[in-house]
């Protein structure tokens, strides 16, 4: 049964995980996402659904536990925040290379280095361009509300299993810490082991009645390795064709469009309201999937709007992908705050006027 609750984004993740039949969570404390594991420990899902919850000795260990669980065909996840996600990159590369499904949550904080515990969106490049070594892509979902935090756990697993690819939920300290109304999904039972074996014939479940399964990313023959690389590339192209998601907020009559994701997209929506009071037709395009990126939608808009303002809590990362999509047809400007500062709607509108309307 669905339930309406008031809770933090981080807590919504945990409730949704248990409700969508997640088999295992492996984590390590780091602000501002520690509530994810705390909530799971309080919920004690091992007594109800049988879900495993384990605090690992490091982020490195946690992601490798996820690697193993995913290899066993289980619905497994981990969560962390920026510095911890950096530590997980090696494991994420292995998971992507071995084509395993899992969900990873990054509740971004400001960097570089230890940075700050305040929100940021400066891990965009790390999330959509690879992050770890080698050519690979994650499916990246960017929630902008507590509701989407809850919804994207189930969606993340669905996409991860559909494409046998890790799915990253790229959130930030605002969404993780903010309390909002959320409709929690109805309880779905965990898959039985028989169902896991049937759904994941490739998994390391024990070789009963079949030849042995090997989960590896290692290949010494360059001819075969190249085929594996090409296969991955083809998969990413398919994902780009099928899975683009975005929110179009009043772009239909817009002269200018803010391109923004996650919490800063909320600010941009307020900026659009302010702009419209002043007679400026501002729309907001909010990419929900950062990979695959809504390139086509931006190209469509580029044909009819006067310019784009990309708003991010970073020095300007997604703006590069917006510029690639617009391809010089229209001006693409950037406005951002860093260091844990969240932009205000007034600042965004001001930047729009100064940088684009002039």
């Amino acid at each position: 049964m669905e339930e309406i609750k008031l809770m933090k984004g981080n807590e919504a993740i945990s409730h949704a995980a248990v409700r969508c039949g997640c088999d295992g969570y492996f984590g390590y404390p780091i602000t501002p996402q520690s509530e994810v594991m705390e909530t799971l420990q309080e919920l004690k899902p091992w007594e109800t659904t049988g879900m495993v919850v384990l605090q690992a000795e490091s982020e490195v260990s946690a992601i490798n536990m996820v690697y193993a669980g995913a290899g066993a065909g289980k619905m497994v996840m981990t969560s962390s925040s920026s510095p911890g996600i950096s530590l997980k990159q090696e494991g994420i590369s292995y998971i992507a290379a071995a084509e395993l499904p899992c969900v990873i949550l990054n509740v971004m904080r400001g960097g570089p280095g230890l940075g700050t515990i305040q929100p940021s969106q400066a891990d965009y490049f790390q999330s959509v361009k690879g992050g770890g070594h080698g050519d690979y892509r994650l499916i990246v979902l960017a929630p902008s509300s507590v509701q989407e935090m809850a919804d994207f756990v189930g969606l993340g697993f669905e996409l991860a299993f559909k494409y046998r690819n890790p799915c990253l939920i790229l959130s930030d300290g605002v969404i993780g810490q903010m309390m909002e109304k959320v409709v929690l999904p109805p309880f779905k039972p965990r898959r039985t082991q028989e169902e896991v074996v049937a759904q994941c014939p490739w998994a390391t479940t024990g070789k009963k009645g079949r030849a042995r399964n090997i989960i590896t990313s290692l290949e010494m023959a360059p001819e075969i390795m190249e085929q594996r690389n090409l296969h991955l590339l083809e998969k990413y192209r398919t994902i780009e064709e099928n899975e683009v998601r975005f929110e179009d907020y009043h772009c239909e009559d817009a002269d200018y469009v803010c391109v923004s994701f996650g919490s800063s997209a909320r600010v941009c929506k307020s900026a659009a309201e302010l702009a419209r009071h002043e007679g400026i037709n501002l729309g907001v395009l909010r990419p929900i999937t950062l990979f695959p990126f809504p390139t086509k939608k931006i190209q469509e808009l580029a044909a009819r709007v006067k310019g784009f303002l990309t708003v991010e809590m970073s020095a300007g990362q997604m703006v590069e992908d917006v510029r690639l999509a617009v391809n010089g047809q229209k001006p693409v400007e950037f406005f951002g705050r860093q260091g844990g500062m969240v932009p205000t709607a007034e600042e965004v509108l001001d930047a729009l006027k100064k940088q684009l309307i002039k």
Partner: protein
Amino acid sequence: MTTKDIIKPENLVYGKTKLLTDNVMHYCPGCSHGVIHKLIAEVIEEMGIQDRTVGVAPVGCAVFAYNYIDVDWQEAAHGRAPALATALKRLNPENVVFTYQGDGDLAAIGTAETIHACNRGENIVIFFVNNAIYGMTGGQMAPTTLEGMKTATCPYGRNTDIYGFPLKISELLAKLDGTCYVTRQSTHKTANIVRAKKAIRKAFENSMAGKGTSVVEFVSHCNTGWKMSPVQANAWMEEHMFAKYPLGDLKDTEKKHYEEPAK
């Protein structure tokens, strides 16, 4: 009676276990890994647990172990095998899960994963092959390299003032409350091979009985890295390695199980 008369199936007293695949191992001639692989395969077959055993092979010469022992395998990043094994066992407790790690993997880059898996008392088996050197990358110094021993990255011998001391990590693991069985074996002679096989079996039985983490160290040689013949390497190992890494059980007990505090 001629040799031809003796060679009949009913007279076979020793042969390759079926659980070892027909793939020719990539290891150098005489490498200790081969015998250890063979023993693990024999034990798994004898216990009849091949359909529920999952091995974890991290980076090192034995990263290709999955080509040789016919069970499910996951290849792991360098040092991370105990983390993988932890999740595999917890998510599928009916499975038998083991790692197969070298000394660089277990005692250097994977120290944290190893110690914490052991400290949690994961019901897994850790096979630890200690040849005092990084074999796969060409014979560099390992944490277990003996004092004064020459390697590619300490060509004048390991200077303990600079690089510290040979790490007796099994002794350290034996101190942890989560381990139930820590033993040091070798496979250079028939008698040792028989003992090592018993240790492997005991370790698997412990994990199935939920007694805690079992660690079986094999003091081994890397004759290529040591720049010796296999026979010379075995002799050198007996003379030098066993002094620092003495054979025998370091611990044989059962981990303490949690009891809820009285309310």
